[in-house]
C-alpha cells in the first residue's frame, strides 16, 4: 500500500501512469498502416470470413477485422467520429444499416460494380450500404404434425387453429422488428397490429434463439414457428433426418420476408479506395459463392448459386420491397408490438 504522504512514491506513480498512457497511444495508433483496410464487423464468426481472407490473397491488401455487437460498434463509430480507424462497417439487419446511414456514419460508395452485383432492393436507396447476404425468415413446421397445405401466409398464423401451437422469438429480437417494419411499409400499421394481435391471441410460446425454436418444434413443444432459414440449414447439414421443414410464406401474395447482412464504407475512412475494392470483391460472384457455402445464407448476387443443403427447399418468391423499410419503420414496429401485447 502506497503512503500518500510520500512524495517520492507519488512521483513514481505519476511516471508509471505517463508510461502507460504512452504505451497505450502506441497500441491504439497502430491501426492505420498504409493501405490496410480496417473492418468493424457484427456478422457472426467475425474475423473468420473466408471471403475476406480470399480478398487478401488475391489483392495483397491486408484486412484487419474487429468484431462486436451491432449497436456497440455503432456507438463506437459515433464516439470515434473523424478519428475512427474503421474503413468498413459490416453488420447484420437492414435496420441497423439504415440507422448507420442516417446517423452519418457511412459515406456513399459510388461504385457501379457494386450496383451491378447487387439488386437495387438490397441496397440503400441513397447508395451508402449494400447487402452481402440475404436471410429469409419464414414459417418452420414439424413434418410429422403439420402438412404444408395447412400453411399459407404469416398472417394466417393468427387463425385460431394454431392456438397453443406456435413458437416465436420475442418482439425485442431485431429480425422480428425488421419483419414487422417491412410489413408495416407494405400494409400499414392498423392492419399489421391486427395481425400481431391475432398471433398473440394464439398464445405463442416465446423462446430466445432461432435454433432453440427449431429444436422446440422438433420436440413437439410447438408445431410451427418463425425463424431464419440458415439456422435450419446448419442443423440439417449435421442431421438430415431433423423433422422440421421450411415453408415459403406468402408466395401467392407479397413474397417471403427477407433481411440482409450488409456493409458500408465509413464516412471518415482513411483507405477508402481499398475499402471500395473490398466491397466490390465481397459482392462478386466468387466471394458470394463462399458466403453462400459457409453459412447456408442466400447470396445477394443472383449470379452465385445457393448451397445444396438448402437448395432442396426450392426457389421462392422474395418480398422485393427495399430492405431499407426495416430501418424506417423499426421504432414503429417495436411500439406496435408493445401495443399488441407481443412481448
Amino acid at each position, binding site marked *: 500500500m502506497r503512503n500518500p504522504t510520500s512524495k517520492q512514491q507519488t512521483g513514481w506513480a505519476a511516471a508509471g501512469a505517463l508510461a502507460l498512457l504512452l504505451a497505450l497511444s502506441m*497500441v*491504439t495508433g497502430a491501426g492505420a498502416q498504409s493501405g490496410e483496410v480496417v473492418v468493424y464487423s457484427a456478422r457472426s464468426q467475425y474475423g473468420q470470413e473466408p471471403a475476406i481472407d480470399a480478398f487478401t490473397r488475391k489483392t495483397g491488401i491486408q484486412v484487419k477485422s474487429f468484431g462486436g455487437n*451491432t449497436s456497440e460498434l455503432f456507438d463506437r463509430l459515433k464516439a470515434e*467520429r473523424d478519428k475512427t480507424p474503421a474503413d468498413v462497417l459490416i453488420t447484420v439487419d437492414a435496420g441497423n444499416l439504415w*440507422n448507420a446511414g442516417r446517423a452519418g456514419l457511412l459515406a456513399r460508395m459510388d461504385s457501379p460494380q457494386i450496383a451491378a452485383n447487387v439488386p437495387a432492393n438490397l441496397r440503400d436507396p441513397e447508395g451508402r450500404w449494400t447487402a452481402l447476404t440475404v436471410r429469409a425468415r419464414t414459417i418452420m413446421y414439424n413434418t410429422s404434425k403439420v402438412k404444408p397445405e395447412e400453411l399459407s401466409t404469416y398472417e394466417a398464423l393468427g387463425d385460431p387453429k394454431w392456438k397453443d401451437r406456435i413458437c416465436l422469438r420475442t418482439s425485442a429480437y431485431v429480425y422480428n422488428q425488421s419483419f414487422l417494419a417491412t410489413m408495416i411499409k407494405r400494409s400499414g400499421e392498423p392492419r399489421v397490429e391486427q395481425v400481431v394481435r391475432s398471433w398473440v391471441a394464439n398464445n405463442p410460446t416465446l423462446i430466445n*434463439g432461432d435454433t432453440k425454436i427449431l429444436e422446440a418444434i422438433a420436440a413437439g413443444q410447438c408445431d410451427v414457428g418463425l425463424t431464419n432459414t440458415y439456422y435450419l440449414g446448419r442443423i440439417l447439414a449435421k442431421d438430415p433426418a431433423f423433422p422440421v421443414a421450411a415453408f415459403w410464406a406468402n408466395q401467392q401474395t407479397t413474397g417471403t420476408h427477407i433481411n440482409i447482412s450488409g456493409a458500408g464504407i465509413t464516412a471518415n475512412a482513411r483507405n477508402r479506395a481499398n475499402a471500395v475494392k473490398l466491397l466490390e470483391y465481397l459482392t462478386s460472384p466468387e466471394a458470394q459463392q463462399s458466403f453462400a457455402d459457409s453459412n447456408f445464407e442466400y447470396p445477394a448476387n443472383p449470379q452465385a448459386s445457393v448451397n445444396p443443403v438448402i437448395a432442396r427447399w426450392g426457389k421462392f418468391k422474395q418480398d422485393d420491397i427495399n430492405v431499407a423499410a426495416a430501418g424506417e419503420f423499426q421504432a414503429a414496429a417495436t*411500439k406496435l408490438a408493445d401495443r399488441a401485447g407481443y412481448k
Partner: protein
Amino acid sequence: MLSAAADRVVRPRPAAGRLTRVWPAAALLVAAIVAVPNVVVLSSLATPNVELWLHLWRTQLVELALNTLALLAGVGAGTLVVGTVLAWLVVNYHFPGRGIFEWALILPLAIPAYVIGFTFLGIFEFSGPLQTALRRWLGAGARLPELRSWGGVTLMMTLVFYPYVYLLARAAFRAQGSAALETARSLGRSRLRAFLEVTLPLARPSLAAGVALAMMEALGDFGTVATFGYRTLTEGIYRVWYGMFDRVAAAQLASVLLLCAGALLALERGSRGQQRFTQRERRGAEAAPVVLRGARAAAATVTCAAVLALAFLLPVGQLALWSARAWAEGRVARDLGALLANTLGLAAVAAVLTCLLAVVLAYAGRLHPSRATRWSARFASLGYALPGAVIAVGVLIPLSALDHWMGATLARLTGRPVGLLLTGSAVGLLFAYAVRFLAVSLQSVDASLTRIAPSLDDAARSLGAGAGRTLRRVHLPLLRGGLAVATVLVFVETMKEMPATLLLRPFGLNTLAMEVWERTNEALWQEAAVPALAIVLAGLVPVIVVIRWSSATRG
C-alpha cells in the same frame, strides 16, 4: 482466550491536522470520477422523451417495475436464506463433508449467471434430454415446470449469487466467535433461539451487505433475463435502446435503475441503524462446532450437497460435456490461450485498481465520518446496479469528448495530427470496471473495517501514528481477509463481465466472455461451453487460493 463482542462505541475522533483534509478530499475525488457515468446517465432526464414514456406507461412500465421488484424480492430472500443457513451449518456444526462444503460452497461464484442460465435450459427445457426422456416414459403429456419464468430466473440468480451472503455471513459468524453465543446459551436460550436472537442480529451488516450485492447483480443483469424471456427494467432498457434506437430514452430508463440501486443501498445502510458493530480484539475464539449425528448429520450433508450439486456440479458437468463434444468436433476457438491471458490480465488489473479505490473511500469514511464521505461512498456504489452497457456508454461519451479535446490540443501544440489516445484503450475499460464493481469491493472492505474497534485507531494515534501509518500498520493487517475477498470478488466479476467489455475493449482484444457472448448470441451453446468453462475454471483458482489462505491464517 481472546474475546470478541459487539458493543456500542463512540465514533473514532477525526484525525488531527493535514491528513484530515487529504483523505476526504481523495474520497471525494474518487467518488466524483466514478460518478461521471452516473451523471451522464442521469443528465438524460433533462430532456425527457414524453411521448416514449407515455407509450411505456401504457404498454409495459408497470409490468416491468413489478417484475423487477418480484425478482429483487425473490433473489434477496433466496440468497439470504441459502447463504445464511449454509454459513451457519458449516461454522457451527460438524457433519460428514463439512470440510469440503466449507470452501466448495463458494465455488458457484465463478459461474456467470448467464452461463448457469443456458446450461439449465439446455438440461431442463422442453426439448432438452430430461423432458424428452420423461415424455418417452410417461407419455407426451409429461412436463416439468417452465423454467422461463419468475421462478426459473429467481432460482438461477439465487444459485449463483448466494455465495455473496455465504462468504460474508461465514466471516461474520466466525468473527463473532463463541462468547456471545455462549452467553446467550448460559442464559437459557436454545441453540436456535440464540442464533436467531444473538448471532443473526450481530451479523446483520454482513448479511445486508451480501444481500444488497446479490440484489444489485439481479437489477443490472441482462444476459439471464433475456435468455429466460423475463422482462425487467434492464431488459426494457435494451429494448428501447436497440429496438427504438433511442439511447437517450434508454438512459432515462437507466436512471430509474440508478434510483432503485440508491434505494437498495439506503435500505442496507438503514438496516445498520444507529448501531456500530465492532470486534474488540483481532479475532474471537471460534466456537467449537457441535458434532451432529444420525438424521441431523444426514440432513446437514444433504442440504449442502443439494445446493452444491445444483449451483455448481450440474452446470459445470453440462459445460464439460458440451465442451468435450465441441472439442471432439474441432469447434473450438483457435486462440483460447490468448483469450485466457487477456481475460486474466484485465481482471487482475481491474481487481487491484478497484480495491485501491475502495480502501480510499472506506478509509476516508472511517477517519472523517461526515455526510460528504458517506455520500461519496454511496454514490460510488451505484454503478453496480447499472447494466454494463449503460455504464459503457456513460464512459464512452465523456471519454471520447475528452479524447477529442486532448487530440485537438496536442495537435495544436505539436503541429502534428494526434489520434485518439483514450477511446479504445484499456483506460476506458478499466474505468468502466471500476465504476461497475467498486460497490463489490467497497462492501467487503467496509464491512471488515467496521468490525475493527475504533479504540485501535485511538491507540495508534495516541502513540503518534498518522492516518497513513495507522492504515498500514494497524488496519491493513486486520483487513487482509476483507481485502483478499474484495480482490477476488472483483477479479471474478471482471472475468464474467460482458457488455462493457464488448463496447470498450481495445482494438482486437478478445476475452473469454466475448467468446461466450459471440456463441450464445447464435444459440451455439456447445461452442459457448468451452470458453464458459474456461471462465469458471480460471475463477476457481483465485477463489480456492483465498479460501486456503484464509483457513491457513485462521486463529
